[in-house]
């Protein structure tokens, strides 16, 4: 009963957030609307990452490769493949699912350290390919000339397009988070071996989590390509991967909306301060250190982090 109420509450909360975000675009100047669009896209990226980090206890160090896969497969299908927006979108999703299936299969072959390092390795490999294969990907300069859906070409209407797309993704992820699948995912985080002895094929289960996570990151990537009207290697860089992890860490990886809050903080700070301070990444570093030392579990994660501390006490 209480839980049912809590869920209704979260639906209500979601509706209010969407309304506020809709109104914001009406009153904010273009610069801020554009920034907010980026926040929404990166929030989707961070939430997709957090499904692995916060829920499953997996630590992918190179998650930007799936953002990049979305960006590049969409961008290349659109510019080199001469596809219209919708088929390019569908094709990019398909490519991302297949790629995350293959990469996931290759990464998930040992303990979590092996996974993290293999993941990092693939990220570096893909970044290098994108950066060096100039004739195909444009190398360092990227590719420009990606258009937005016809009705949504100006900043404000594109913002609403992104808001709608991201909202749909959030609803899907929210449903997923409440499912038996997500319950088992949390079990994976807590005790992998127990799960194995409950008859669950861990590697296959992790692969499914991996593909879902990669899929939502790819959607974020496609939206990012539309926002920037181009594709750039920074979208698939290690810095982006690290930024994603920072968002989860700062906002709180034990809550559904934590990484979104983290995304807002990281994107706004990096954009706004970079016009004043040259070394904005230093500021980000300070925030992370403060988060890890000051409030473990991030801004939205205090309660849960206390639980985890107590768990450590039990272990001792």
């Amino acid at each position, binding site marked *: 009963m209480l*839980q*049912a109420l809590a*869920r209704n509450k979260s639906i209500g909360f979601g509706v209010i957030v969407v309304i506020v975000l809709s109104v914001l675009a009406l009153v904010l100047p273009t610069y801020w609307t554009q920034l907010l669009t980026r926040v929404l896209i990166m929030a989707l990226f961070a939430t997709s990452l957090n499904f692995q980090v916060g829920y499953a206890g997996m630590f992918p160090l190179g998650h930007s490769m799936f953002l990049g896969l979305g960006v590049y497969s969409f961008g290349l299908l659109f510019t080199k493949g001469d596809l219209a927006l919708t088929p390019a979108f569908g094709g990019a999703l398909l490519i991302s699912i297949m790629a995350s299936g293959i990469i996931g299969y290759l990464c998930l072959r040992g303990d979590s350290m092996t996974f993290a390092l293999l993941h990092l390795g693939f990220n570096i490999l893909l970044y290098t390919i994108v950066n060096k294969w100039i004739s195909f990907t444009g190398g360092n300069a990227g590719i420009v000339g990606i258009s937005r859906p016809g009705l949504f070409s100006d900043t404000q209407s594109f913002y609403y397009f992104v808001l709608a797309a991201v909202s749909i993704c959030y609803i899907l992820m929210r*449903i*997923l988070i*409440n*499912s*038996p*699948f997500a*319950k*088992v995912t*949390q*079990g994976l*985080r*807590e*005790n992998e*071996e*127990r*799960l*194995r*002895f*409950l*008859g*669950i*094929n*861990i590697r296959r*289960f992790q692969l*499914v989590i991996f593909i879902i996570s990669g899929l939502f990151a790819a959607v974020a990537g496609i939206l990012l390509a539309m926002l920037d009207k181009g594709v750039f290697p920074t979208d698939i860089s290690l810095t982006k991967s690290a930024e994603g992890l920072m968002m989860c860490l700062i906002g709180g990886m034990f809550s559904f909306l934590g990484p979104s809050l983290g995304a807002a903080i990281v994107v706004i700070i990096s954009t706004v301060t970079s016009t004043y301070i040259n070394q904005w990444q230093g500021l980000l570093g300070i925030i992370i250190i403060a988060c890890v030392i000051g409030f473990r579990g991030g801004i939205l994660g205090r309660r849960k982090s206390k*639980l*985890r501390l*107590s*768990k450590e006490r*039990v*272990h001792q």
Partner: protein
Amino acid sequence: MILRTIDLVKDFGSLRAVDNVSLDIEGGEVRAIIGPNGAGKSTLLDLITNRSHPTSGSVYFRGKEITNLPPFTIASKGIGRCFQISKLFLGLTTFENVQIACISKWGKVYHMYSFKNNVLDHEVTKVLDSIGLNEMADELAGYLSYGDQRRLEIGITLAMMPTLLLLDEPTAGVSRGEGNDLMRLIKKLAAEQALTIIFIEHDMDMVFNYADKISVMHQGRVIATGIPDEIRNNSLVQNIYLGEKIS
């Protein structure tokens, strides 16, 4: 015959931890495995569930060979395993701990949507009732007392409705009274669900009170198997437990 091991061997480098162990366990039997520390008891359970891979030999469960199957397949065939150190989802509630086992048992692992809040509510409550942890349902597993954690470990395993249950020192670290409660509970549930049980135990009282048959291990070998009275009077066993009176 529900479980049969044939000439199981496990070498760790030059150390032979399990040495040609052949066991026959009948359906419905409660079998205790005893022996001094380092006799290879836990390793034997690891070999049966393929948690560690046997150097040679084979394991048959209900007439079919399971030696090389991955642990999760063996688990889903109906062999439940409780560990010496409880393996629980400590950051989740007691309810959720059992719920995950039920989700697996009822084939809902890959169900990605549910508009019902408490999946398998009824089944979970039944298990919690049977292990007497219903009042602790919303408590984090990490907050439970040690004895309750042992109970929960058994509950999670029973939620899978195994036909064979392997228990590694189920009563270690709990008080004598609690240990007795736990063993009575296991016996009762075993009778209700027609379970076969293999348990490792150091407490001789427990062993002689609750086991139908006892196998004694020493230096990797099974040196005697029999009903409690036979084991009590076996001179070889008495030698191994030198000075330790078997009551």
